[in-house]
């Protein structure tokens, strides 16, 4: 049940109507209980077998959080540290079991076979449950934040379970931090007209980028990653160049829809993107891309490592960044291509570290007529090309496929293909609109957000028309139920 589907619309209509019944609005516990039931129904609809695991792991972390706080209060720092480590290991263990066991067992068997020890390791066939990478990170974040004394443990299990299973974000994030989200569950939500209208606008923009831009490019990139031997060199080049736009439009589209749904229910969900197409170098790109994940990894992986390596100068920074990027790569799943992706990105950081340019970039300043400055534009194009190369690594089926794809591109058919013939005119126009708005609306949360965020009765009509437009996109789009790229991670 993806957000841009009619089944979700029907589900959400029921959730919304009951959530804001007068009897419900009087008490946040009733609202939380309803949200939790809705979230478990939503998750169970996709993967009902995982529901007991989700409930059990949520309970385990809830108890652990309370125990860590009690240990701190008793002055038992060791017990607090040990229980936090236990929580982190439990989270990583869960991820390891579902995401990596097949991979490591397979690789280990291959290794043993290679050195002459013949073992037959039947494939474990553990199916990756949807959303596990996202809710596990929320759970780990909860125990670390308590240990660092940034938050108090949640005293109410219902509230904690609702935070972990919150349906708009359980499938693919954004990964909300407990410090910002839990307090929102401690008050009854009244219908907030302006916030809800802002959410509707955000959903519309998400539907547009996902269904009009991402899904139309997906048809091209899908062929490039799978049947590249049948494609000409120019086709492959166009696909590679378009891939960063596709993935951005897809994942930003999903994130906007999730955040928008949250806003209608009165929640502020953490933002996931800050105009990554405007990044002038790789370091800036990582400060603009998938913020809820990169922020998480910065706080819990990069900072502790960087603190530990702080007297090693540039080598320490390089090591911390490399481990950080390997974790980001491996987070995507179990495949050597993801490891290679981490190595590739850490190598891109090397020149930046050596020249001292890895720090925070100066704010973008417009040039003549408010347009992007030429020097910045060159940086953006260069970064885009480097990202596009990285996409070959991450979306290829395996390391041999990457080499084969390059061979096909170099030795293939070089007869010219008109790039305009690959996409429909409205898809091309939409991509141009996205690129232009990316620059001109760079200070907004999403491109079509009203500056004042004040939606009067007049703008209600506009929003109503927006929603009709969204409905039209969903109905007429050929790929109404196309999967989101990030659901696989």
């Amino acid at each position, binding site marked *: 049940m993806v957000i841009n589907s009619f089944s979700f619309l029907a589900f959400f209509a029921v959730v919304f109507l009951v959530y804001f019944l007068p009897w419900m609005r009087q008490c946040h516990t009733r609202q939380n209980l309803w949200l939790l039931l809705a979230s478990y129904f939503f998750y169970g609809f996709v993967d009902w077998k995982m529901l007991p695991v989700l409930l059990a792991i949520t309970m385990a972390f809830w108890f652990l959080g309370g125990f860590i706080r009690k240990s701190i209060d008793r002055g038992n720092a060791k017990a607090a540290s040990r229980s936090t480590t236990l929580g982190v290991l439990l989270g990583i263990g869960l991820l390891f079991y579902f995401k990596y066991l097949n991979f490591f067992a397979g690789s280990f068997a291959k290794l043993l076979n290679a050195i002459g020890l013949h073992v037959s390791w039947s494939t474990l066939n553990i199916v990756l449950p949807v959303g596990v990478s996202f809710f596990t990170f929320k759970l780990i974040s909860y125990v670390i934040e308590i240990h*660092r004394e940034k938050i108090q443990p949640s005293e109410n299990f219902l509230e904690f379970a609702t935070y972990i299973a919150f349906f708009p974000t359980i499938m693919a994030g954004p990964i909300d931090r407990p410090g910002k989200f839990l307090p929102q569950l401690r008050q009854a939500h009244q219908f907030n007209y302006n916030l809800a209208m802002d959410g509707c606008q955000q959903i519309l923009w998400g539907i547009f980028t996902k269904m009009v831009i991402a899904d139309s490019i997906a048809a091209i990139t899908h062929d490039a990653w799978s049947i590249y031997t049948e494609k000409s060199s120019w086709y492959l080049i166009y696909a590679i160049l378009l891939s960063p736009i596709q993935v951005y439009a897809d994942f930003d589209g999903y994130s906007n829809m999730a955040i928008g749904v949250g806003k209608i229910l009165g929640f502020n969900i953490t933002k996931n993107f800050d105009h990554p197409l405007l990044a002038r170098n790789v370091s800036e790109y990582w400060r603009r891309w998938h913020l809820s994940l990169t922020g998480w990894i910065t706080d819990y992986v990069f*900072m502790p490592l960087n603190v530990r390596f702080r007297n090693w100068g540039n080598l320490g*920074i390089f090591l911390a960044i490399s481990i950080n990027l390997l974790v980001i790569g491996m987070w995507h799943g179990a495949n050597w291509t993801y490891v290679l992706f981490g190595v590739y990105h850490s190598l891109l950081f090397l020149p930046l570290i050596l020249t001292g340019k890895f720090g*925070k970039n100066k704010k973008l300043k417009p040039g003549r007529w408010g347009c992007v400055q030429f020097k910045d534009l060159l940086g953006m194009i260069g970064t885009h090309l480097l990202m596009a190369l990285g996409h070959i690594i991450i979306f290829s089926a395996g390391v041999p496929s990457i080499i084969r794809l390059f061979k096909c591109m170099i030795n293939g058919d070089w007869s010219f293909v008109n790039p305009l013939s690959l996409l429909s005119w409205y898809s091309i126009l939409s991509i141009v609109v996205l690129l232009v708005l990316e620059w001109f609306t760079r200070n907004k949360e999403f491109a079509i957000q009203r500056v004042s965020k004040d939606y009067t009765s007049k703008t209600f009509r506009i929003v109503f028309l927006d929603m009709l437009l969204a409905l039209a996109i969903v109905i007429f789009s050929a790929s109404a139920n196309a999967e989101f790229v990030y659901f696989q991670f």
Partner: protein
Amino acid sequence: MERSEIYEKLNEIFCDVLDLDEVHLTDASVADDIEEWDSLSHIQLIVAIEKAFGIKFTSLEIMKWNNVGEMVNSIIAKKQ
């Protein structure tokens, strides 16, 4: 060491590491207040502070700080 003396020294270190002309840190100052202060320059700041005051923080101490005031408390505790 007086709190005001620590702040004087910290202002100097911040200007030096972050390449700023002037800075006025207070107990409530946080990274969001200064554009140049990010996760990377944060580590450079810590290294410079440890060197200037001749102290060593633990990892957990560093992770727990919520603002400059809490960092100053740690410095005072170490200097006593």
